[in-house]
Structures are given as C-alpha cells and as structure tokens.
C-alpha cells in the first residue's frame, strides 16, 4: 500500500522507511512518524471507536490531548491498551490493533448503542436497572461491564523494568516550544543548573508544526539550533520524551522519561521508563496551548480534526487526512491551516468562518458568517453541510475538516495545588490564576501569550526574573524576529440547534447531555462532570471541558467564569503504573534481611519464612521427615531432652549508655530497673502512653552506665523511635545515649539440659559459666574460640536451661558450626521459628499474637509489674476504669477435653450452655500448637476473668473453619510451671 496521503517536505526522515501493522494490515512509514501520521499517510482515518456509542473515530489532534485515536500498541505481554496513536513513535515492525470493537473496527456490533442513543442519555442508569434487586449483579452489570472499558490488559506480568531516579536543578523548564527554549537558553547561558523537559521526541513544540520563519530560517531550524546549543552546555539537561506529570509540594516535580517506548524492546538491562523526582528551586511552565473544537452536528467523523492538528500533520509529518479539505473557524488561526495545506498542494474547498467580517484572500474561498451544520460519511468524512448567513445551505465534498475554536492555555500544572485559573476575555480562555505551586512561573502560550514573538520574549523575561529570585545574573538574548499576530477570536462554542454535537468525544458526551444535566439540577461544574462523565475520559477533558462550561453557562444564563472551572489533577497525561513502582516488584518488592546463620541454614536444607523483612529458618527437615510437624516435634523434643540451637539475631538490640541509663529505663519500662545489679538481666514490659502493652524484652546491665536492651523482632524500629522520643522530647537532660546494635551481633539461643555442657566446650575456660558462677539471669562479656569477644546472657524463652550467646556478626556462621560440632556428642539440633513458638507457648510466654496492641499488663497477667512508685510511660492511663474491669480478659491456657482435638488460634470462647453469638463472646485463642511434651494440642489466649476460671470447661468455636468442641481452662504455663529447669 502506498503512502497516498504523504505530502512533500516535513521533518520525517525519508531515508528510513519502516513497516508497521495495524489490525493485521502491513503498511509503510518513516522515521519521525507517529502511528497516527503514518496511518493518515496510508489513507487510514478510522482508528478507533468511542466508549459509549461505539462510533467510528479518527484522530482529533496530533498530540497527547487525543480522545479518539487510541489503540492497543504491541502484542503479547507487552500489549499497552489505550495508547494514543498521535504520540506513539513509529518503529520498524510496530504492531497495533484497534480496541473496544467487535468483530472488527469497520463493523462493530456494539454500534447498536448508537442507534439506541436516545435511551442512553446522561445518567440514564441511575434511573433504571433496579428491578428486581438481584438482577443488578447477575444480569445488568455484567452486560454493562463487558460493553464498557476500552482496551485489554495482557493478564501477563509486565516483562519490562522501570527505574526511579532523583534530579536536582535551579530551574526546571516544562515544555520546549518558543517560550521554553528561550527560557532554557537564558537560564543555560547564566550558568544555572537547568532541566528542560518535553513530552515530545522532537523538541520545539509548535515551532515544528508551523510554516512561518524565525528571522531568516524556518522556525524548526531555529528550534533545532537552539536545542543543539543547549545540549552542549554541561549545566543543562535536555530531556525529550519526558512528561512532567505533576507539581508536588515545595518544588518537587514528578517526571516520566520514556527511555525505550520508541524501540521494539528495551536494550538489555535498560528500563522501559524512568520516574524522576525532580527537586527544583524554580520552575517555568511553558506547556503551550491546546486548540479547542467547535461543537456542531455530527462533528465526530474520522477526518474531522483540530485545524492546528491538520497543520501539524501537513508541516511536520507531511501528511493530510485527505486531498480535499475544508476549515471551520471562529478566528484567524484557522486560516493558517488553509494557507499551509494549500501550499502543500492540498485542495482547500473553503474556509467556513463564523465571523461576518472574516478575512478574505484570493488563495481560497472564505465563507463568512457561516457555520457547519451537518456532516456525512459513515466510517470517514465525505462531505460537510454549510449553512450560510442567508440561511441557505451548501455542501462541500471533503475528506478532511479542520476545526478551530480558539486556543486554551495549558494551565494544568498551575492547578495541581488547587490554584484556580481566571478568565481572560481577550483570548476567550482561562489563564493561570490563584495560588500557583510555590516557585512555579508561567510563560508563553500557557500564560495566554499566543504569538510566537510573545512566547519568545515571555520565556526570556520569565527566566530572567526567576534567575534573579535565586540570585543569578543573566543576560537578555537577541531573539530572532517572529510573527506577532494579535489574537482575533470571537467566542463561538457550538452551532445552535445541534443535538448530536460531541463535546467529550471519547465518553460520548454531547451538547444535549449538558442541557439535560442542567434540567436535573446538576449545574455545578463538578456535578456536570460527574453526572455526564464530561472530561473523565483518558484525555482528561483537554479538548472538551471548555465547551461543556460554555454550554452550561448559556443554559444557566451565566458567564463562563461564574459557572466555574474543573480542577486539573496529576498526572498531566496517563502514566504507566509500572513507572511509579520502579524496581520494587516481585522478589524485589522489599529488601531481604538475612540472619548470620543463613548460609549454614541453607546448607542444612532449612525451610525459610518471612518475618517482617527477615528470612528466618522455620524448621530443619531431616532425611525421612515428610511433614513439617515431624521436624518441629523432633526439634522441640530434642531441645527439651538434650540441647538445641536457634538463631535469635532478629530480636532488636539497643545499646543504652550514660549516667542516667537506669533512670531512663525506669521511664521506658513499667517495672523498676534502677536496682538491677551489674551482670544481671531483667525482663521488662514496655507500655504505650495510653497504658497498652507496646513491647517486651530484656535489659542486661553490662556496667553501671550500660544496658543492652532487647526488643521483639517486629517492634525493633518502633521501640527505638519511641526511646528517642522519650530521650529527646520528654527528658532532654538525661545523660543517656542510644544506638541500635541489632545487626552488629550474631546471637544464638542455646537451650536444653545440655546447654551448659555444650557451651563449656566453646566458651574460653577462664570464664566460669557454672550454675554458681553464672546463675539464671546472669550476663557478661566473655570470649570464645580462644579469644574472640562475645557476650553471654542466661535467659530462656524455651523454659529450659538456656543461654543466649552473641559474637560479632561476621563470626556468627563460624560460631554456629563450632557449637553444632561441639554439640554432636549431645545430639544437638538446630531449631527454627516453629519450634521456638511451640516452646514459648508451652511456657505461656506472650509474643506478637498476645501483644496485639489492645492488651494491657492486666490482660497479660502482669498487673503487679506496673510500679505505682515511679513515673513510667503508660502507667497513669493504664489506671482507667475501662481497662480494669472485673471481667477483664486474662491470659490463660487451654487444653482440649478430647485430646485428639486441636485448639486453633483465632477461635472464640463461649461459656457452656450459652448461645453462640457475639453477645456471649468470652474471649479468643491467640496462639496454639501441638505440644510434643504433653502429647496433645494446647493453646493460650484471652478469657474474661480467665484467672478465676481455671479448671472450667468452655466451648471453643470457630464457625469460619468449622470447629466446635470443649476445652478446659488451665494455667498458661504448661511446662515446668515452677521454673526449676531454667535454674538448673
């Protein structure tokens, strides 16, 4: 197929001819084409279907404001639904398919909606589909959902990667048209750190789309030369293919750079896109302006587009939608399109100008004071009907119609922090107003300065003033002379009487929908938007909002600014979700923390489990063990029988030093610490200020002025933060210093009757760790393996004779190997988090499931620990009546009446004979396990007044999992309640 609509000239590289496929048909285009320009070159105007009525549509624009020409780009896992053909860069082998149609783009069965459009007026669905109630989910909604939506996701993981990055600059310049380039040149030459970003792959903005000259050269030549100069400046970063998506607080801008979207696939190791967070001292918005259409009957046929877009296609891409075109305008700019297409050899049937005093020329016919009142062509424009001032009509046989209703400054970014644009009657458009984002200035067309000369000067002067703000001197540029035509526009929004005149072409919102919304009192702009879906499509209303406002103003008898403006929100254009996620996906979603014995545990074939960021060994399967319970039961039994070793490095460790260290811990813990002797460990319970238990752990007094505090794995970070708050904000004059040492020490629990024997083979002999020399709750500095500094704590979570031994982390691997070797004669076993959990439940020790953020010391059975003799965080509010009721929950144990039964965590408890409902809920099981020691399942949990109900049989129910049987209330200390073992 030849490029029958390709014209001469243009900024494409004809030496590169590329093949691409659309809906199965192969065609040719050139480097520098977009998918839309290449399709137009091949005489393809029909590119999509609208959302509601499935009407045939072609490109309305030549940029990112496009509502109609959206396609599924690429195939397979790389498929990108809803991609604008008008911005998709052509590459060799590109494949695209039309979307939201069945079976084909040319024949779409859903186009039946168009025939029934009168039933689908704005808000119709709020008024029906209610009978019978159940039918909504079952019948109506599935049909509506299937018909709705646009493109389809692949359902496969995105094979590409995304980066994030951070940039810093003095001045960020958004847009590279005349204003942006002049600003960048001014700032660049001043030596400032400058970033200039543009969403387009070719910098220059409208300069690349116009035929006029800057000085002696065509505008695009000046643009290219300026960009070339900027690229030579080390202090300027030129970023094409980069969209500034939003203005965030304090000069931070989000930007998305499309690194690889113009390639078939990204290069090895390279991201598809980069989300940049740009920290700027100042920013200049030079985003230009967007032309707006005029609403008239059947204004949505393929071939009807904005006049400026028609001009861009002809001048930049050397294509035309048809060789016979006309223009419909209310301003002088529309005439440029006629002149430019004429110059390219396209036949201009006429320019239809709504103004009776329209400028006349001998080059083409101008029909003044006339309007377009209808069009023809099912899948593409074939003719337009013009109604003359006299009232008589004329038909022009054209395949393309350029429509120009004036220009709207691209103020979007100025609204991102709730600035409200203000109305400028001279150009009949909203211009930036209200509170702009801090540090943001606006220049050029975005500021309502619609002439090229005005844009150049505006860019330069704005740059000079912001540079001056940040103390940088700059010189004025000598800018080339440029067109400076005054804006000559007579507001004209829609042709009177037009019924099917589309405002929001993607969402099929027509002029009559706005009238209906007004009738039903949805007159505020936000109501209009939400009720009719005007401006809610993927083009975010860039070409539709103004006309909606204008028509609402008309029917409400108000001025446009009195109707209001809708708020523009980030992102400026729809942005790939992958870009916001960056590399944080799949296994790399969050970093992994590994324990010092990780390598050894892997060698032992350990099964690992996520505990927060940590990966911990859950159990260590031995040959022949087929079920996890076998491994866990063995680890528990062997530990209780002889000795077991567990990596407990993940517990938080905080070094607390200073003359007031003990007094500080007195504030942090509800129980007293002042009198803990050096060389001793004490268990501590930490409350939040609201009296609820926050965390528990131990504090080992290594010296008068030195404690090592442990926290639970989960709360390590929060407890440290809390301690710093107490230290800096509540008791700023205490002499206490804090630092985390969690990672610095590899710590292992060595538990079981043979723990001491094992350690005596590892700990250097000069250290007496006999029961007398190193009794229960002792701690101290020791050495192992012939002189390596280490710490020993005689504490027990398992209820056995146990120690925790710590060495610098790099030696942890060696220590665990050494201990396992030394333990061989005792049959020492490694045990994981499951066995750890079993043993602590058998002992009734509270952990995360019990310290769940709603439980008090009273609930935990530790009320007596809360000292009333001192001030500590949380002690006062723990006295509130509601936390001290007679039937308060108490931590107790449960054992099944029928020993075969489990005691599943999460089950609720009912008094025997009571109804099973929330009103009679007596409590719940927090933790449960099979106890190898006792030979049956056990659980611990909270029971109302539980401490007074030992021996009672209660009903355990878990309707969710189908459990309902009796359990007996017992002490939570199932094993060695007297605690003889730990002191052995």
């Amino acid at each position, binding site marked *: 197929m030849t490029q029958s609509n390709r014209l001469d000239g243009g900024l494409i590289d004809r030496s590169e001819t590329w093949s691409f496929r659309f809906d199965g048909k192969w065609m040719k285009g050139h480097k520098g084409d977009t998918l839309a320009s290449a399709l137009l070159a091949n005489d393809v105007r029909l590119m999509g279907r609208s959302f509601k009525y499935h009407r045939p549509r072609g490109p309305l624009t030549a940029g990112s404001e496009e509502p109609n020409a959206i396609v599924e780009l690429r195939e397979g896992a790389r498929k990108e639904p809803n991609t604008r053909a008008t911005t998709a860069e052509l590459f060799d082998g590109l494949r695209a398919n039309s979307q939201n149609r069945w079976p084909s783009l040319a024949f779409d069965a859903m186009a039946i909606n168009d025939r029934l459009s009168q039933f689908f007026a704005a808000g119709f669905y709020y008024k029906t589909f209610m009978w019978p109630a159940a039918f909504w989910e079952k019948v109506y909604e599935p049909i509506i959902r299937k018909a709705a939506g646009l493109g389809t996701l692949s359902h496969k993981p995105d094979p590409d990667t995304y980066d994030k990055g951070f940039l810093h600059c003095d001045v960020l310049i958004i847009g590279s048209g005349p204003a942006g380039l002049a600003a960048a040149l001014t700032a660049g030459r001043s030596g400032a750190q400058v970033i200039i970003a543009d969403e387009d792959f070719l910098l220059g903005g409208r300069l690349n789309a116009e035929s006029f000259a800057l000085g002696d050269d065509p505008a695009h030549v000046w643009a290219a030369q300026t960009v070339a100069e900027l690229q030579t400046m080390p202090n300027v970063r030129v970023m094409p293919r980069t969209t500034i998506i939003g203005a965030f607080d*304090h000069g931070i801008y989000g930007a998305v750079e499309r690194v690889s979207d113009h390639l078939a696939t990204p290069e090895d190791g390279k991201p598809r896109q980069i989300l940049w967070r740009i920290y700027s001292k100042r920013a200049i918005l030079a985003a230009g302006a967007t032309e707006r259409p005029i609403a008239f009957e059947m204004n949505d046929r393929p071939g009807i587009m904005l006049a400026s877009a028609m001009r861009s296609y002809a001048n930049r891409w050397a294509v035309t939608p048809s060789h016979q075109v006309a223009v419909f305008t209310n301003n002088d700019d529309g005439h440029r399109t006629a002149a430019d297409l004429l110059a390219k050899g396209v036949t201009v049937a006429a320019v239809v100008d709504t103004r009776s005093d329209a400028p006349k020329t001998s080059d083409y016919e101008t029909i003044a004071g006339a309007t377009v009142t209808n069009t023809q062509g099912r899948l593409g424009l074939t003719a337009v009907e013009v109604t003359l001032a006299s009232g008589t009509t004329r038909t022009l046989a054209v395949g393309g119609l350029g429509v120009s209703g004036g220009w709207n400054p691209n103020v979007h970014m100025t609204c991102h*922090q709730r600035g409200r644009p203000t109305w400028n009657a001279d150009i009949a458009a909203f211009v930036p107003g209200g509170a702009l984002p801090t540090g943001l200035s606006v220049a050029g067309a975005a500021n309502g300065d619609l002439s090229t000369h005005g844009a150049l000067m505006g860019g330069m002067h704005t740059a000079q003033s912001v540079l001056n703000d940040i103390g940088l001197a700059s010189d004025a540029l000598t800018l080339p002379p440029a067109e400076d035509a005054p804006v000559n526009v007579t507001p004209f929004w829609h042709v009177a009487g037009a019924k099917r005149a589309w405002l929001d072409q993607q969402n099929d919102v027509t002029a009559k929908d706005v009238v209906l919304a007004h009738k039903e009192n949805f007159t505020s702009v936000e109501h209009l938007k939400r009720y009719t879906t005007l401006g809610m499509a993927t083009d975010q209303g860039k070409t539709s909002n103004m006309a909606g406002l204008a028509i609402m103003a008309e029917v409400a008898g108000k001025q446009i600014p009195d109707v209001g403006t809708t708020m523009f929100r980030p992102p400026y254009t729809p942005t790939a979700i992958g870009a916001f996620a960056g590399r944080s996906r799949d296994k790399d979603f969050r970093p992994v923390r590994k324990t010092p014995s990780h390598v050894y545990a892997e060698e032992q074939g350990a099964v690992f489990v996520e505990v927060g960021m940590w990966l911990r060994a859950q159990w260590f399967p031995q040959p022949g063990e087929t079920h996890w319970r076998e491994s866990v039961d063995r680890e528990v039994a062997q530990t209780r029988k002889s000795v077991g070793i567990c990596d407990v490095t993940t517990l938080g460790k905080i070094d607390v030093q200073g003359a007031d260290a003990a007094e500080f811990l007195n504030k942090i813990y509800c129980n007293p610490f002042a009198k803990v002797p050096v060389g001793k460990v004490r268990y501590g319970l930490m409350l939040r200020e609201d009296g609820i238990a926050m965390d528990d752990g131990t504090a080992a007094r290594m010296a008068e002025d030195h404690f090592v505090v442990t926290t639970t794995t989960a709360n390590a*970070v929060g407890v440290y*933060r809390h301690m710093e708050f107490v230290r*800096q904000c509540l008791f700023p004059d205490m002499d206490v210093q804090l630092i985390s040492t969690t990672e610095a020490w590899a710590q292992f629990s060595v538990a079981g009757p043979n723990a001491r024997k094992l350690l005596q083979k590892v700990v250097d002999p000069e250290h007496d760790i006999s029961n007398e020399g190193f009794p229960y709750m002792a701690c101290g500095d020791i050495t192992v393996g012939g002189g390596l500094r280490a710490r020993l704590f005689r504490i027990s979570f398992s209820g056995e004779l146990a120690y925790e031994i710590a060495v610098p982390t790099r030696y942890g691997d060696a220590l665990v190997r050494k201990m396992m070797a030394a333990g061989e004669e005792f049959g020492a076993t490694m045990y994981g988090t499951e066995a750890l959990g079993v043993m602590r439940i058998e002992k009734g020790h509270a952990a995360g499931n019990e310290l769940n953020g709603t439980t008090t010391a009273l609930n935990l059975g530790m009320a007596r620990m809360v000292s009333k003799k001192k001030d500590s965080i949380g002690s*006062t509010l723990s006295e509130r009546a509601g936390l001290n009721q007679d039937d308060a929950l108490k931590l107790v144990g449960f054992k099944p009446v029928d020993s075969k039964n489990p005691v599943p965590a999460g089950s609720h408890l009912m008094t025997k004979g009571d109804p099973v409902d929330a009103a009679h809920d007596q409590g719940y099981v927090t933790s449960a396990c099979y106890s190898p020691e006792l030979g049956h399942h056990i659980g611990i949990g909270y029971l109302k007044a539980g401490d007074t109900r030992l021996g009672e049989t209660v009903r355990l129910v878990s309707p969710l999992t189908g459990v309902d049987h009796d359990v007996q209330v017992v002490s939570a200390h199932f094993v060695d309640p007297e605690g003889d073992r730990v002191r052995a």
Partner: protein
Amino acid sequence: MIINHPLLGPRDSAEFTYMGDARLINRPDWQADDAVAQFTDYGYLRDNPAGAHRELWFHEGGDRSWLVVTRDTTTHEITNVELARDVARAEGRSK
C-alpha cells in the same frame, strides 16, 4: 515535601516519620491529683488547626533527631523547623 533540617539542610520528608501535634512534648505530671484527666487530654485531644501547625517529625532515615516543624496544613508551607530537644528544654522539660 522538603523539610529544612536545622543541622542538615533541606531533606525530603520521605526520610521522616510523623508523630503529630508538638504538644505531646508537654507530658503532664504523673503525681497531679487529676493526673488521669490530664493524661487523657494530653493523649487524646488535638487542636488540629487549619493553618499553622506545630508538629513532631522524626528523622528516621537521617540523624535520628526529633524535630518540631511549623507547617501550614492548608498549603503545606513550612515556616519554621527546630530540634525538638531544644524546644523541650525551652518549655521547661529536663530529667
């Protein structure tokens, strides 16, 4: 947002952890007769102004300083940043 750290200069607020109303520095006297009532007010009631708000931020990803930041809750503009420790001392807190 950017928080201008009194020691480290401008830092991205993402490095910080937020706690809220800087009145949390003014912890009541545990021995007061109406201590529970005072602690209830202290713990639970907030001015929550629409405008200038003195609030506590912890530089978790930085130097571990608690800061008192004065920030407008309607515009997010930050007008003052102090080390919470200095503020606490100035407000009479000691040991």
